[in-house]
């Protein structure tokens, strides 16, 4: 059999395979150089960048939960200046798509960061983060009200000339309303889902585990919700969907593609196995050979429901 074609096209960008890594779970990529060849991945979504330095939330920021974890990091990063001058030069030559997750507290901040990232030649797309549940201002606030989601997307669209992806929050009543609203604002692709708002309690101490009381739930615990939302959004909009939420292996990745994801992100699984993303690439290829699928795009949204 011929080697199957794992490449996918997202809004005009060619990805060698659909496996990418989720922002906030993969640092800036170089933390993984001891473990994997980044050139084997379709792309990497680097840690969120904001206008100014953010210290993030206080410790403790993490709670292990059944089949998952809660985090309340709070977008800790050193700001867009630091990213452009210190980080970009050291990651620009990775042989994969480097996509920057852009976040902010105000529309102006989103626009400012997007404008700066637009100047970076090797950054092929940005992912607008309107879905972080762990910051007081901005973040998820923009991602839960359709009119605000349209507005922030449209304002960034005016200054950002390359591929604009928008990452949606699952903490909404109607995910399709939000998806349509960011497409109206000019999004080229939609990423979903970000973490689900949750909390953990220490009964012995009668206290919350996280310093912020609530945090974002990730891991296999949220996979069924993510699959459902990817399926709904894929049917509701015409732009490509990048799916994530609890993907631990190639089978999970295939499930997301069947539900309608053109590409996938591996998130929390990177914490447990830093080589898992490459294993998923190999596993998808093995699945295609086993099912005699020549082109991966044939799988996207190919769920049989009759």
């Amino acid at each position, binding site marked *: 059999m011929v080697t199957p074609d794992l490449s996918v096209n997202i809004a005009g960008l060619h990805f060698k395979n659909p496996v990418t890594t989720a922002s*906030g*779970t*993969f*640092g800036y990529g170089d*933390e*993984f150089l*001891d*473990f994997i060849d980044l050139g084997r991945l379709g792309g990497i979504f680097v*840690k969120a960048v904001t206008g100014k*330095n953010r*210290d*993030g939330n206080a*410790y*403790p*920021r*993490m709670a*292990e*939960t*059944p*089949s*998952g*974890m809660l*985090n309340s*990091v709070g977008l*800790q990063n050193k700001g867009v200046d630091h990213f452009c001058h210190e980080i970009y030069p050291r990651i620009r030559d990775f042989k994969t798509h480097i996509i920057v997750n852009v976040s902010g507290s105000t529309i102006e901040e989103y626009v400012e960061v997007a404008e700066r990232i637009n100047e970076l030649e090797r950054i092929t797309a940005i992912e607008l983060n309107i879905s972080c549940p762990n910051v007081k201002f901005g973040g998820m606030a923009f991602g839960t009200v359709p009119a605000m989601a349209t507005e922030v997307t449209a304002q960034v669209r005016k200054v950002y000339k390359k591929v604009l992806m928008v990452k949606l929050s699952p903490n909404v009543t109607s995910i399709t309303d939000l998806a349509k609203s960011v497409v109206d604002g000019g999004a080229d692709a939609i990423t979903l889902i970000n973490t689900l708002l949750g909390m953990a309690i220490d009964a012995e101490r009668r206290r919350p585990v996280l310093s912020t009381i609530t945090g974002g739930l990730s*891991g296999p615990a949220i996979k069924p919700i993510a699959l459902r939302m990817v399926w709904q959004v894929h049917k509701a909009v015409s732009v490509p969907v990048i799916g994530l939420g609890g993907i631990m292996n190639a089978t999970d990745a295939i499930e997301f593609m069947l539900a309608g994801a053109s590409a996938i992100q591996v998130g*929390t699984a*990177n*914490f*447990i*196995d*830093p*080589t898992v993303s490459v294993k998923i690439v190999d596993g998808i290829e093995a699945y295609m050979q086993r099912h005699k699928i020549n082109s991966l795009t044939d799988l996207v949204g190919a769920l049989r429901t009759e």
Partner: protein
Amino acid sequence: MTFQKVVQVLTVVHYNRLNGRHFIIDLQAPQPLPNILPGQFAQVLVPDSPGTFLRRPFSIHSVDFGKNTFRLLIQVKGEGTRHLSKLRVGDPLDVIYPLGNTFSIPVTKDVLLVGGGCGVAPLLFLAQFLKQHHVSPTILVGFRTKEEVSEIEEYSKYGHVLITTDDGTEGEKGLVVDHPIFQRERLDFKKIYCCGPDAMMKSVAKIARMHRIDCEVSLENTMACGFGVCLCCITPTDKGNERVCVEGPVFNINRLKW
């Protein structure tokens, strides 16, 4: 100094239950060990434990580069460590190592190591290392009770050992900071290395400051990844929030907001 990190399936080649709550395991690598120094830790994937989602971090207790083995000292605390306590010789174990920074090499021979409970774990490796550098430290180790006092003959190979127990059943009664050496007006140490519960390390740090002794502590913050990407294990330092798993676990107390 940079360290090559690896994710490897190691083999359990030795298991010893020290007491009701603690055990040690020796893990053998399939190829020569990478460079490992005292203070570094390993992230262990707990096998056959669906309730344990994340890896569990443990300080490297000692290393035998000749046999390609290193030792972990583990306290049974929850479901993950309970599963690990059931490991047997010959079992495989998926481990990421070596992680984190290291204790600094002292510029003095007047060195005190202070460990409490499971916090003694990185200090045995440090004592071995110091011996190679012709430093014979004083090693103060605290335990809950006589039944948990263990590996004293090991520590004794590398320095002069002092013991405290909470209930006074062996050594001096009380916490490590209650030991008579700290009650003296002048302490004859120029460097303290410390690992244990936060409250204990903070008490030791206070004593070190009072006597103007340089002091390094090894923090045990909860973490998800262990190699610097989840940003969950941070501690406030003079450079903002730093990662205990990369910039630590060892910090000089002057850098911490203690």
